[in-house]
């Protein structure tokens, strides 16, 4: 019985680390993978998702619906950012980084001025999962499973839609894609919006578990970067592999050495993985 409990404990913890890393990283990974740019305001996109989810929830929309609202709001916001800002700096990785860093300063401060230090909280739904002496937050399990669901959804978008095909073509060879009639500007616009939707959904999913503050994005940004960098440019396999392998490191490390141990292990593992695989996990799965 004790063995079953330990295994459950490990699995639920793994699922929850995996879920956090994957959700935090997926939106960023889509944008980085397809467009080759880093959205430094990614944490604030998550924050916008969480805030709009909370507003929608406060207006009486059930949580699932509210999270969708959060995702769509963030997506719409991403669309605007892309049109006003990002499209002027395709292929300028560092410039995008600085510009989106500026954007993150603006967003954090604007939200603080508009909404103050903290914001309405959403109760954690679904109650407690109980098995013998073991209990865990049901919502965290759902969160991990939802992360898997989002991977499946993202996979479907990239393989089953025209946008997805064009995005992958543009990612592999932008000039060739254009020469074959792919409007890469439009593809990038949709990609940024899609990545923003994913970040917003992540924010909405995190909202019940955390405290909404204007600076909450910074809690996820390191996790997101680490996942994306370890994953590399392959959006799905890379990000999934990164979230899973980092989760597998963080779970025992934080069990054995505490929360700090887990975080240090995360950063050290990242450094080592990049040393061994300079292209991240994608470097292994894509050999071209």
């Amino acid at each position, binding site marked *: 019985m004790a063995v079953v409990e330990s295994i459950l404990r490990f699995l639920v913890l793994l699922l929850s680390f995996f879920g956090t890393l994957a959700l935090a990283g997926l939106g960023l990974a889509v944008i980085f993978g397809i467009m080759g740019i880093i959205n430094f305001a990614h944490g604030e996109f998550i924050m916008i998702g969480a805030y709009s989810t909370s507003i929608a929830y406060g207006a009486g929309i059930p949580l699932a619906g509210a999270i969708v609202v959060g995702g769509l709001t963030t997506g719409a916001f991403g669309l605007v950012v892309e049109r006003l800002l990002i499209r002027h700096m395709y292929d300028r990785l560092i410039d995008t980084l600085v510009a989106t860093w500026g954007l*993150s300063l603006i967003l954090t401060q604007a939200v603080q001025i508009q909404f103050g230090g903290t914001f309405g909280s959403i109760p954690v739904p679904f109650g407690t999962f109980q098995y013998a002496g073991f209990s865990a937050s049901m919502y965290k399990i759902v969160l991990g499973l939802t992360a898997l669901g989002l991977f499946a959804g993202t996979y479907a978008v990239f393989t089953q839609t025209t946008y997805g095909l064009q995005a992958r073509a543009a990612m592999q060879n932008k000039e060739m894609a254009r020469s074959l009639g792919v409007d890469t500007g439009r593809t990038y616009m949709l990609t940024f919006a899609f990545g923003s939707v994913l970040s917003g959904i992540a924010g909405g999913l995190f909202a019940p578990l955390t405290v909404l503050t204007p600076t909450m994005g910074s809690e996820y940004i390191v996790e997101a970067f680490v996942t994306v960098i370890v994953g590399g440019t392959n959006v799905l396999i890379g990000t999934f592999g990164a979230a899973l392998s980092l989760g597998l490191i963080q779970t025992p490390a934080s069990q054995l050495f505490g929360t700090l141990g887990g975080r240090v292990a995360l*950063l050290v593992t990242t450094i080592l993985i990049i*040393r061994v695989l300079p292209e991240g996990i994608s470097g292994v799965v894509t050999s071209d």
Partner: protein
Amino acid sequence: MTDAGGPGAIARLRDLLEGQNTLGNSTRFWYGFLVVVGFMFVYPFLTNPFVLKVNTDYFVWMILALSLAVVWGYTGIFNFGQTAFFGLGAYTFGIVGITLIEVTGGTNVAILAAVVVTVLASALLGYFMFYGRIRGLYVAILTLAVALTGNLILVRTTNTTIGAAELGGNNGVTGIPSLTLGGGPLSVPLGITAQYYLVALLLVATYLGLRILLNSYYGYVLLAIREDEDRTRMLGYDVRKLKLIAFSLTAGLAGFAGALHAAWGNFIDPTVMGLTAASVPIIWVTVGGRDTLIGPLVAAYALQSISTKLSTVGSGYTNIFLGAVFVLVVLFFPDGLIPAIVARWRERTGDGHDIDRSNTTEAEA
């Protein structure tokens, strides 16, 4: 007869200082430069100790900006963790300074230690990265991760002492000695004005020194690495070694600036290695113009003083303003403000002989 050597010496000096790799090669520029430097040196007579003290720190930041401009702007190594080395230098200076001030009476050893420790640490990291084929964005994230890990560790150092220095965790190291001049028993601690002069002198020397470096043969090789690493390698250069040298030397310069900052404030704390601190120098260099030296200098000074000024307004709009500046500059002046201003000015005056930027493409990480 007597002044025959004069102009010749100046010409030789200009020959060293000038070249395609730096902005400002005209006689007019040097007159302007002398005016600015002259003003820097009479400034203490025109203002109060507060302004001097603050400006001293701006000068320190400007040295940090220069170090990043060389490693990132000129060599193309996007070191996102330059403040890790700044912080390492500051902490080393603090620890060695506090421990030795009673023994040696001065801070010379502490300064030296700060530079040596940062050069060694960065060489270690650089070896790990450059000899491990790590490039571009991955260098950026790796260096950032190192800075953030440093922050995590330093925050935990409550009641930890090294030598005579208490690291103090979040509260930082206090009681760091101010800079001293002279050596051994003859060391004199510097007051606000003297510190100002010393740091100003160091800044001018750093600027001119880097100009000589960048316009030398070595500087052209660094640029070649930035433009096309693989081709530079095929031309027979040991790119990894050259990158390692550039990375460690600029890190050492950052560590040196860190030591000056610690001495300036008699204080250093772990926030220097945080995410915000790490991004600030990146922003100076981008806003100023990353393949110039003068741009990051001006931007560091301007942005730091604007930021201080805004905080005296007491409002919470500082970050909105700064954020908007970054966004707009990147949007409308991708090469940075200073190159844009210079280009505009040249257009108007028709003065085009300075440098030809047509064949330098954008610096990629």
